[in-house]
């Protein structure tokens, strides 16, 4: 069964925490990813790659380079999942 938004948020939050080396409970949907200490853009890309792998999706480059917050990541993941489902 596909994950709902809340489940995707939990999954994305866990991956963000693991990749960027911060406690999951310190993250909120509004957390600015690039504002986290130690989170340069390459690490953010590694995080995106991990999320893509987890959901077996490929995000648009435009989305990858513009997402700023955890909730925006969730939104683009939902968009990609919907596009996959429509195929």
């Amino acid at each position, binding site marked *: 069964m596909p994950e709902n938004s809340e489940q995707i948020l939990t999954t994305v939050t866990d991956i963000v925490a693991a990749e960027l*080396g911060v406690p999951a409970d310190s993250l909120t949907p509004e957390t600015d990813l690039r504002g986290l*200490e*130690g989170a340069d*853009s*390459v*690490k953010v*890309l590694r995080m995106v*790659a991990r999320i893509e792998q987890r959901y077996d999706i490929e995000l648009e480059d435009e989305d990858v380079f513009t997402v700023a917050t955890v909730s925006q990541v969730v939104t683009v993941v939902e968009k990609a999942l919907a596009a996959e489902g429509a195929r």
Partner: protein
Amino acid sequence: MTTTATDRRDPAPPPGTALGPMLEPHEVEQTVGDFMRATPVSRRWDVESIDWSRADAGRLTEGQRSAVRFVTLIEDHLPGYFALYHRLFPVNGDVDRETYLHNRELYHFTVRWAAEEDTHARALVRYQTESGLADPEALRAETAAEGQREFTLPYEHAVQYFAYTLVQEKATQIYYQQLRAVVDDPVLDELLGRLSRDEARHFSFMADTVERYLRRHGDRVVEPVRDVIATFRMPLADTMRGYWRWALKIADTASYDHTDAYEHLVRVVNRAVDTKTDRMDELVRFITACRTVATA
């Protein structure tokens, strides 16, 4: 307060050129001189120095072949990198005399550096064609498609370009060393050895330059340097479609992490200042925090 030549340049530099503060021309001259002395004629090499007859891409894994293709595109973008430096540090009548003198000294480095990087591009292209990795015509088309895209960096201050290139040169050196450690083709092994030694010297120039900036300008350049690390992007990340996925894959091929280069920037900061200010301390702490934890 005494106004220095470097400060006078700050208010109205021509559009598109690097902002100050900058080093004094004699400081650039010294740094360039040190770089030139480290590369005597006897230690230079060219594409024709290598015996390509034994090059064999059949001895490489798929990941290693992909890595060679990738770094060829990066090195082959030299005209874009060179054009950026030329725009940032013009050597013409658009700038005041003091800036011209600074830029003229830097130009001595830039052209030597460009010649060496161009040799890297030629050598990697030659390796690909001699080893059977690529068809010459197809490779020309591939490099042209990427080469025609404009290269930019999102910085304003001169010190940021040197700090970015410092990280990039060290990261590239580390990457070539790591890749060299796993490849089984002796020709590629030799080539990667030559490339990594060149990148090490380029890194040294950038490290000396950034160190001088920190000594001369102290806290004034801390924030611009911090910004480079906070926003660090791989070269061409914005110009090549799908580049970033490819970059991450080839990084894994050689067990490479670009943040390994950050500790070398920390060393530069530590060398530059005997007693660190709070802002310098914060910079070191920030760069250190950006290093990837080994288990991450």
